C-alpha cells in the first residue's frame, strides 16, 4: 500500500514568490495535517483538515493557507515567500475521526529553499 506522498520533493524559490505544495493521504484517510520543520528543530503544526474542513491552525501568518479536496488530497500555499520559510514541509494523514490520538502517518516532506 502506498504511504503518504508529497510533491515536489525539492523546490527552490526566490523571496516574494508563491509556492504550492501537494499531499496525497493514505487511501481511506480523511484527515491531513501540515507541519513546518526548520533544520535542527521539531515539526511545527500549521494546519489540520478533516473532511475538507479546517480543524486546527497553528501560529503562522496569513501568508500560509491550505485546502483539502473531495478526494482528501491537500495543498499548502505560501505567498510572499521569506528567507525564513526555508524548511522541510511535512504532511501527515490519519484515519478515524481526525483526532490526534489516531496514528499520524507522515510523508517524506518537501524541502523548500528560499533564496
Amino acid at each position: 500500500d502506498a504511504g503518504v506522498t508529497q510533491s515536489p520533493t525539492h523546490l527552490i524559490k526566490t523571496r516574494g514568490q508563491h509556492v504550492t505544495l501537494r499531499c496525497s493521504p493514505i487511501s481511506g484517510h480523511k484527515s491531513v495535517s501540515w507541519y513546518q520543520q526548520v533544520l535542527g528543530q521539531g515539526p511545527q503544526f500549521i494546519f489540520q483538515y478533516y473532511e475538507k474542513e479546517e480543524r486546527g491552525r497553528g501560529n503562522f501568518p496569513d501568508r500560509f493557507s491550505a485546502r483539502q479536496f473531495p478526494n482528501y488530497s491537500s495543498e499548502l500555499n505560501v505567498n510572499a515567500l521569506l528567507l525564513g520559510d526555508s524548511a522541510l514541509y511535512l504532511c501527515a494523514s490519519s484515519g478515524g475521526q481526525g483526532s490526534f490520538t489516531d496514528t499520524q502517518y507522515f510523508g517524506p516532506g518537501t524541502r523548500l529553499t528560499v533564496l
Partner: protein
Amino acid sequence: SQKIEQNSEALNIQEGKTATLTCNYTNYSPAYLQWYRQDPGRGPVFLLLIRENEKEKRKERLKVTFDTTLKQSLFHITASQPADSATYLCALTMNNNAGNMLTFGGGTRLMVKP
C-alpha cells in the same frame, strides 16, 4: 503557553545499553503524549502513545512512562542497537483558539555505537 522541552544535546551510548530520553512540559498536563522517531531527511514515524491514566507503556524494546506530577515523560530503549540511532521526538495535543494542534518538542538525537 505550553512548552515542550527535550534535551537538545545528542545522547551517545554503547550498543546493548539502555537509552533514556526525557520530555518535559510546562503548564497543564495533556490527556496523552506521543513519541516519534525521525531519520535524517525523512518524516517522523509514530512509535507509542501513552494516556494520562497510564503510568507506563511497552512495545517490544521500547518503554514510555508518563508522570503528570513531574510533568515528564521518559522514553527508554533497552538493548539498544546501532539501528536505533535517530532523532526521537515527543509530542502532545494542545488547544488554541483555532482548535486542536499537535505540538512537538525539539527532539533528541540518539547515537548508538557498536
